[in-house]
């Protein structure tokens, strides 16, 4: 045993640490642009508002050529999973992570597009290789988006026939695949 400390002192210390945590979380929420009510509530009940930190606005990298399609597909999935009739599906899987991974892959496409714009002449072999890799990467992103769209339809099936666990697992797999899109595309 290292030291003896009274329960009063420890409880008081715990209270101080708790309030300090509240101030820190409130500050982080303020910086993330969360509503004022959430910021004030965090001072007192910050453990209950931690999900807001985890979902901090996914601004992500600069938008690329597929941003609109990504937002459209993910919003449709979110709306479907948020439907009260879809409670069979445990959608705790990483929608946030999937969104960020797709945004990152999309931003890489935008980078390559900017590079290709500037390469009017010279180094044709490298340019061709870059175009081919870009096409592969875009195809990979669109494949993931297509599968996400399929998943949305399967939510309806799960709502009728069960099998929500398999869907949650599928969403996790898609998220993991999306996070490797950069490597797959060879960019």
């Amino acid at each position: 045993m290292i030291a003896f400390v009274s329960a009063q002192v420890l409880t008081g210390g715990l209270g101080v640490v708790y309030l300090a945590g509240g101030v820190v979380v409130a500050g982080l929420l303020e910086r993330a642009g969360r509503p004022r009510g959430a910021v004030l509530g965090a001072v007192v009940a910050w453990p209950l508002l931690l999900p807001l930190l985890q979902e901090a606005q996914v601004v992500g990298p600069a938008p690329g050529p597929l941003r609109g399609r990504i937002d459209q597909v993910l919003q449709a999935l979110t709306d479907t999973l948020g439907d009260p009739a879809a409670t069979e599906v445990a959608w705790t899987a990483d929608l946030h992570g999937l969104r960020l991974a797709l945004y990152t892959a999309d931003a890489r496409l935008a980078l390559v597009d900017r590079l290709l714009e500037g390469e009017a002449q010279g180094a044709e072999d490298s340019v061709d290789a870059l175009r081919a890799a870009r096409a592969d990467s875009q195809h990979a992103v669109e494949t993931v988006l297509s599968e996400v769209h399929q998943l949305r339809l399967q939510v309806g099936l799960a709502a009728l026939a069960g099998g929500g666990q398999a869907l949650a697992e599928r969403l996790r797999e898609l998220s993991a695949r999306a996070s490797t899109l950069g490597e797959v595309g060879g960019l």
Partner: protein
Amino acid sequence: MDAVMPIIEEPATMDAATPTGSSLPTVREVTHGLGGLLALGTAGALGAHGLTPHAMPGVLWTSAGALVLTGPALLVVHQFLGLQAAPDRVVGSMAWALAKAGQLAMGLVPFQVFFSVTTQRGPGLLALLLCGLGGTGLLAAMRGLVDAERDAGSTGTQLMHVRGLALAWAALTLLVGLRLGWEVMA
């Protein structure tokens, strides 16, 4: 009023691909689980009775240690009995149980800290929580073992054997865990 929860245990469905039986957990998931066990031990080592550093790795030592000591025996007997499930599914069942129990342990940290700080019963509560963790983790592992056997297309007799083996292994792990826990508390 509708029944809140079906008390009757629902049978596992083949299309409900539960992670515990389908694959090995990732290194990240296992590491998080181990971290959770360490965190719970640390929370239990604090308290109004004083700081007892040797108890910090106690939960990790007791739970993971028991699995490490009894896991190989389970694998050996499983193969010796000629059961159908692949060894990686057997290992996966144990690993998933550890990962999930560790996740629960991490979630119990605020609860343990609260009692460690506001009462003198921190170590006692830690022991109770450890028993609960062990029990629920072993239940999950047993379920995983039976699922693995069922997925491998075992006969009725083999399923009976694996249920008996799972029960015996769980009892052994519990006893080994108690012994390890006793040595930590002493």
